[in-house]
């Protein structure tokens, strides 16, 4: 088809015009933001292990995660985390803070449509696929692990 050929050529042309994201600056920003978030997490970990020496390491980890999840929700609520995310990219998405932000931001956004149809329905629009893929992936890995 003539039209198909035209469209293919047009898409090739458009692709050549698109400005490319510069890899090194993006990587540096992601490294910096991700590193700072992880350092804050480690700070909480050290703090809790110092003040509560009776806690097991796994319990300290849980406390640390709860703290940074709470902080992310807080900074999402006051409109700071999206600015960090727009600048830091993957650095703010990959740590658990990104996951927390992806649940709290739709919860804030869709509050106006009510608790059930707004918050409850829309809360997992972004994190939902991650959870589903994670669970399915771990089941598959579990099966593979069983037979190895």
């Amino acid at each position, binding site marked *: 088809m003539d039209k*198909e050929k035209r*469209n*293919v050529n047009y*898409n090739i042309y458009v692709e050549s015009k698109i400005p490319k994201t510069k890899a090194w600056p993006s990587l540096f920003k992601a490294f910096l933001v991700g590193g700072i978030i992880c350092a804050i997490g480690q700070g909480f970990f050290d703090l809790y292990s110092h003040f509560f020496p009776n806690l097991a390491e796994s319990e300290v980890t849980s406390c640390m995660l709860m703290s940074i999840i709470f902080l992310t929700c807080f900074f*999402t609520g006051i409109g700071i985390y999206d600015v960090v995310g727009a600048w830091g990219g993957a650095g703010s998405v990959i740590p658990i803070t990104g996951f927390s932000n992806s649940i709290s*931001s739709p919860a804030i*956004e869709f509050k106006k449509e009510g608790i059930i149809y707004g918050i409850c329905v829309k809360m997992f629009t972004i994190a939902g696929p991650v959870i589903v893929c994670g669970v399915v992936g771990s089941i598959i890995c579990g099966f593979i692990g069983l037979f190895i």
Partner: protein
Amino acid sequence: MQTIKFKNKPYLSNGYSIVGPLEGKGPLKDYFDYILKDDTLKEKTFEKSERKLLQDIIVGAIDKAGLRTGDIDFFFGGDLLNQIVSSSYTARELELPFIGLYSACATMAEALALAGIFVDNGLAKNVVAGTCTHFSSAERQYRFPLELGNQRPPTAQWTITGGGASIVSNTPSNVRLVAATFGRVTDFGVSDVNNMGAAMAPAACDTIIEHLKNMGRSPRDYDMIATGDLGKLGSEILIDLMEHEKIVLGKNYCDCGCMIYDKTERVFMGGSGAGCSASVFNGYILSKLKKGEFKRVLLVSTGALMSTTTSQQGDTIPGIAHAVEFEYVDKSTAKKEGKDD
């Protein structure tokens, strides 16, 4: 023929525009009628804010033209929200006879063209044509929650907060509608919703060529040819496409989406949304036309006609562009002609 030439040349008596705080910092800030300090407009949801914005724009336009809502025969309007709620709810509040339109971001030109046809044929005396968009309500509907910390690709555009409305009337003034071209829906197979400029550029190219051909003009006959919201990349593509058709767009070509924001703002390829061409036209272009600094202008609003569902199902993005041509008329000739009627 796709182009409708107005025999009685309806007048564009006035235009009114409101923009948000970010747009109000841009290079066109002196031309807008009102700049919002608070983009919520003291409403509880952004959908309500958008509605209030459009209502303020329509009332502002009617007031500026020295009319009352009762003098308006029809309201041609549309917006980007599902079921064009902002326009319908505005029409409900103002109790105006409403003709709802949807051409995505090309709605302003479509509304002006239809308003022109109605007045030209004596079907109405005063008609208001207007549209608006709100960044936050558009983000909610089309993209991600506002507070999500995600990155946009470099080809993305920024939906503007703002809009504009024009009063098309048979009462003489110094700006007239000359002709309008309704565009064909054109799809060159672009499916990236973050690259709307590339999806809409072929439609703009098609409509401009058709308009120029039917009017027997060349781009040099215009003081300004303004596309709606192709953005930086889209307008570069349009220039290339036109060149391919052996028509050179000169320095008089510009894009409303590129004009509205300051270069330092983080808006990627520029502004977009139905309100983009509406506010730039009714703010900047119209004031230049009224002063006679522009004698002939072609407004080509561009729209991308996809929905979130069609995009998710992998469909490509159809584009549309409508063109309306305006001319400046000397006040004395305008009055004389008015008396002859």
